């Protein structure tokens, strides 16, 4: 019953996403692309933090690794798919390595280790001009071409992004629906107990980081041809914090949380037509209020509201 409702909901949203940019300007398509791109990265972070319970403040650096890899490969006239694959694999491996600290420390300490990693990535990106173009960054990345079809038009690129995002969502859905999903949650809830029941805590923690980071890399592979200009500043710690906010605002450990959270951060200010500065201030205040009232995020809030009349009904019956 609930599964049905969710399927219908997803179908409606996908249909809406297909028609959304039609008849709108290029800007709307661009905006939708950046939203989907961030949603992919936030989904990955949600796996690491929301499902497996390990905080990471380095997700922006993985978008960076993916974006630089894709840019370098495509600027050398190799296909986008190759660049994307290089970026994703690289992020998987680096994410795996970043998972090792998570075997030793938790909570705030892990937050600081990953934050330091992100800062180090920023320094490398800024200083290794030969590879990353330094502070000037890289620009002019071509948009991918699928067989005979080029995605250089904004609308075509939007559908391309939408397809990638849907594919990424489906894969993640399969992961969290499989026994792995339960294992990730068990890891989050009680690691010692999980290990005593046979869970290889070490391997699963590393995987939580590796997969989450690979999603960051995929987002980067979209960002490079989307913006067609990248520089270290796009991947700094502030960006990682804002991704973290998206995941938490949407709802930690909720599959659709990151999609909603990134929409609130990217699409809502446009819809409300307020300037960025005011929006950010309102957003910050709203986040503080949300955290005090409902740490489960917007989806947690929706669940609570949905559950309330049911409880009242239940009380009336008894």
């Amino acid at each position: 019953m609930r599964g049905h409702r969710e399927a219908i909901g997803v179908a409606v949203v996908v249909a809406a996403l297909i028609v959304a940019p039609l008849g709108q300007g290029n800007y709307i398509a661009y905006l939708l692309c950046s939203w989907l791109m961030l949603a992919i990265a936030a989904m990955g972070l949600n796996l690491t933090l929301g499902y497996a319970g390990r905080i990471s403040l380095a997700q922006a650096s993985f978008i960076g690794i993916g974006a630089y890899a894709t840019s370098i490969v495509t600027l050398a006239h190799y296909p986008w798919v190759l660049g994307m694959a290089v970026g994703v694999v690289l992020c998987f491996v680096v994410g795996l390595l970043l998972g090792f600290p998570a075997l030793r420390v938790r909570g705030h300490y892990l937050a600081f280790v990953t934050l330091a990693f992100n800062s180090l990535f920023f320094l490398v990106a800024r200083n290794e001009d030969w590879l990353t173009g330094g502070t000037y960054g890289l620009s002019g990345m071509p948009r991918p071409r699928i067989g005979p079809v080029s995605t250089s038009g904004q609308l075509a690129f939007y559908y391309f992004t939408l397809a990638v995002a849907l594919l990424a969502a489906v894969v993640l859905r399969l992961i969290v629906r499989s026994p792995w999903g339960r294992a990730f949650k068990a890891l989050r809830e009680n690691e010692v107990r999980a290990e005593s029941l046979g869970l290889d805590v070490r391997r699963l923690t590393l995987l939580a980081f590796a997969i989450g980071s690979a999603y960051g890399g995929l987002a980067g592979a979209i960002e490079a041809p989307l913006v067609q200009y990248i520089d270290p500043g796009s991947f700094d710690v502030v960006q990682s914090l804002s991704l973290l906010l998206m995941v938490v605002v949407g709802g930690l450990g909720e599959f659709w949380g990151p999609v909603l959270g990134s929409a609130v951060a990217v699409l809502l200010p446009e819809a409300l037509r307020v300037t960025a500065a005011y929006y950010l201030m309102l957003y910050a205040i709203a986040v503080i209020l949300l955290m005090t009232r409902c740490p489960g995020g917007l989806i947690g809030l929706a669940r609570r509201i949905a559950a309330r009349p049911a409880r009242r009904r239940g009380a009336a019956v008894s």
Partner: protein
Amino acid sequence: MAQFLQVLLSGLATGSIYALAAVGFSLVWQAAQAVNFAQGEFVMLPAFLVLIGEHWLHWPLWAALLFGFALSILLLGLAFKRLIVQPFGPDGGLPLVIATMALSILLKEAVKTFYGAEAEPFPSLLPNGTFHVGGAVVSVRDVLNLLAALAVVLLLTLFLDRTKTGRQMQAAAQNPGVAEILGVDVARMTLYAFLLNAALAAVASFLITPVYLAKFSNGESLGIVAFIAAIIGGFNRIRGALVGGLLIGVLDNLTATYVTLSYRAALPLVLLIAVILWRPQGLLGDEEARIV
């Protein structure tokens, strides 16, 4: 040698200001288990409050400073505790961390929107100029910054160790349950920690802003440095945070001069990762103080 002395001294001077922010950070951590991700912005803001007093209200500098200091304590101490930290109860966890991140965005954007995005000069409270010691050119401001910051930390340590209130604060932070039974007003002591943090942040702000100019984004790097100093020093001890701050200031300057300019910021980060992984209790902390 002369150059080394110069580099060392200016490193100590900046380091001592980092230490102020780190000490405040540790105080709040101890008192309320709250990791304040807006700590950098807490150091950024007071300078702007002074600028508001000076340029908008056209007050003399001393009045503006007083105004900035008082308002900082009100906003970053009292309001921060009442409105942001308190609603989360005794163990805020991740939601509280997220709230302080949001607060840092709020403070940054508010300054950018209402005051301006440009870097503003900030009046120096200390005389400029230099003097020579054995061939080294020493900036008077550096020396005075260092002395001022050290004096503040010394006073704080004396307050915490020698006065009744100070000892009650420590008791309240270490074991609130027992302290409560022994008649300590734990809520009040916690509030004091927040007020002290705000005061330290304001002092740090007044000392460091003349060096770097006032800019809304100043807090971004400052906050990270404060964390690093606090963690390296042992997170929950005042002296540790002081040493951590000085160490980072000096290391940063030494790397920049003798090793690499472009990667000067990397050393503290690497040090942070190493300390967390191999000595989570900090360089000065002991095993029992470990709180992972």
